């Protein structure tokens, strides 16, 4: 066999190893003996356009059939949980929002609910703050599912849906920008309430979005639901039944696509979800097609929730009344993001020394949280997002652990992929909707 200029090969104790850099498939193919070497090991990722982020898959293939699949994670580990232990409780919001970057509002809300439970102020959260949280979470759920639709479409070769999904998600990011000052990483939901009130122009934008979205959903369904290639790629692919889901700890749309209507918003309600009217969509098949159907239906349910939350918004405070916990000011959105409150600055700098001291203590030192531990779980777009927060009585978290649905759900990949075709690994992995920022934290 001649050595090509492109591929490098070397002998190891495990056999011959090729380093593939592209364009050298002839060498690779001629280097293996198809009669005797039936199994090849393919390392897919972590830099691969269809592994849904920096996920690495090690696949043992027999022809096109996957015999063994193992996923390797950790490439996006940023030590957020450790970092939290060195900041005060309010600063934690700015860290956790960066975990699952497609669902920042959920990370923040889970964290805020956990801190509030530790403080024992769960019942003191104002109605308006809770309603805004629900509103933001459901908008975020829609945007997250849209990205799922977009990226999954792209990974299965449907490029148009990728453009459509990201285009509509942009509307929601605009709404988020109007409300929080930032498109992503908002740090908007804070322990005690939310950082600032929702401006009127955002309400107008949300109403516009609600009017526009049903047409777009119809468009997606026209594009995909009857399309033979999409059906071939999704139906009966990567099947996981309820037993498998529960054993592997899979929650969220994947569990619901197998037929179990387990949605924490219904089964263990928080933020007043029990008072809203919405359905939990399920599907009997437990395949990629079912997950697609469930997610599209969930977008519709979330729109119902957004509409109800909008109707419920009554004027009122968005932070707890306790001045020892509440951030000292209603911040304002400026042209370049979240800004100061001029009124508050004038007060502490010009009128009240006590206010200045209070501001200084609360901002630099933060509030103390009584010792203890809590676990709060909310229904994130990918499943159960659990926050285990421990306080030792200080101004900083002693330990915060996120039960990230992306991390837990990825364990299902071997169960879905093994025995199937390599192309279905992509479909199955995408249908889990892993977000590596959340998985690796």
């Amino acid at each position, binding site marked *: 066999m001649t050595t090509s200029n492109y591929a490098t090969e070397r002998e190891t104790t495990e056999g011959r190893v090729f380093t593939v850099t592209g364009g050298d498939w002839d060498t690779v193919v001629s280097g293996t003996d198809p009669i005797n070497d039936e199994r090849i090991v393919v390392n897919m990722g972590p830099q691969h356009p269809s592994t849904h982020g920096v996920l690495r898959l090690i696949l043992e293939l027999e022809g096109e059939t996957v015999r063994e699949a193992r996923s390797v*994670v950790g490439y996006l580990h940023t030590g957020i949980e450790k970092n939290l232990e060195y900041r005060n409780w309010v600063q934690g919001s700015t860290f956790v929002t960066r975990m699952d970057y497609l669902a920042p509002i959920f990370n923040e809300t889970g964290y805020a609910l956990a801190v509030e439970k530790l403080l024992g102020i769960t019942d003191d959260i104002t109605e308006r703050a809770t309603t805004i949280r629900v509103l933001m979470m459901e908008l975020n759920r829609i945007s997250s599912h849209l990205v799922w639709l977009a990226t999954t479409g792209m990974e299965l070769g449907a490029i148009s849906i990728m453009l459509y999904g990201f285009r509509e998600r942009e509307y929601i990011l605009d709404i988020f920008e109007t409300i929080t000052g930032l498109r992503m990483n908002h740090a908007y939901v804070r322990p005690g309430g939310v950082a600032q009130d929702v401006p009127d122009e955002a309400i107008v934008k949300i109403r516009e979005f609600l009017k526009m979205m049903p047409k777009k959903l119809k468009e997606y369904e026209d594009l995909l639901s009857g399309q033979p290639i999409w059906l071939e790629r999704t139906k009966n692919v990567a099947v996981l039944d309820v037993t498998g889901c529960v054993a592997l*700890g899979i929650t969220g749309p994947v569990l619901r696509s197998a037929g179990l209507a387990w949605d924490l918003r219904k089964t263990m309600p928080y933020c007043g979800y029990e008072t809203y009217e919405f359905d939990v969509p399920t599907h009997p098949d437990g395949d990629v097609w079912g997950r697609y159907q469930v997610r599209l239906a969930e977008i519709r349910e979330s729109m119902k929730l957004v509409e109800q939350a909008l109707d419920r918004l009554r004027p009122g405070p968005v932070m707890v009344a306790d001045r020892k916990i509440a951030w000292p000011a209603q911040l304002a959105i400026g042209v370049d993001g979240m800004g100061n409150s001029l009124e508050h600055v004038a007060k502490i700098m010009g009128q009240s020394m006590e206010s200045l001291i209070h501001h200084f203590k609360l901002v630099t*030192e933060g509030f103390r949280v009584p010792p203890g*531990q809590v676990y709060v779980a909310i229904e994130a777009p990918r499943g159960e997002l659990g926050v285990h927060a421990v306080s030792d009585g200080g101004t900083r978290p*002693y330990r915060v*652990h996120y039960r990230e649905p992306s991390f837990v759900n990825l*364990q299902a990949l071997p169960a879905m992929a093994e025995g199937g075709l390599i192309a279905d690994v992509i479909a199955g992995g995408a249908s889990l909707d892993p977000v590596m920022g959340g998985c*690796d934290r």
Partner: protein
Amino acid sequence: MTAPNDRTNDGGVPVPVTPAGARGTAPAEYPPSSPAGRGMFGNQGTGDVSGYGGLVRQRQPIEEASRPYGGYFDEVRDALEEAYPAFGDAIEKVVVDRGELTLHVRPERIAEVCQVLRDDLALRFELCSSVSGVDYLGADERRLHVVYLLTSMTYRRRIRLEAAVSVEAPHLPSVTAIYPTADWQEREAYDMFGIVFDGHPNLTRILMPDDWEGHPQRKDYPLGGVPVEYKGAEIPPPDRRRSYQ
């Protein structure tokens, strides 16, 4: 304990003399619970830079709850006691706090307890929601705690199991045979805390690189970081900044 007058701390700020009227006794002598408790203000004596003397917190002992616990907690305990004869031996403590039930389990019994909790018809904790570690440095000999959050989808209940091991012998049985979902979560706890789950099929690092040394989430593992210059001033890394107890 009084700090010597000429000492400086890591932030380069001189440590002040003992304030007038301060007594050299508790609560001033409470050591910071973590390296995060020390910092640029660096008052080694009290750690209290709040200006309010005596506001240094103390570690509260965990109180055992007394019956009735309220809610479904009594039912869970009764059902477990009935289904699991070794209950008295395995359960060290029952704690009810903030509406959550925690069973402190002897580490070597954790898999048995999980098996009963999953299989007994009156308990049915089918889903292991979360496994995580907490390092209570300085609290106890057995400072590494493994915290399991179990969910009963049938009864819509949650309970927490907590098992404590020491750094010298950080072993306890794996629950992966009962809850396969614990696989990666136990690997994470091993990676971050060095807790060894005996019987785990593949206990390797998961988030940190394979050749990493140490277990980053332990409280005696430093955060790391470098000082940054900002507008002429040097800002110390987060674990060296001033901090409040």
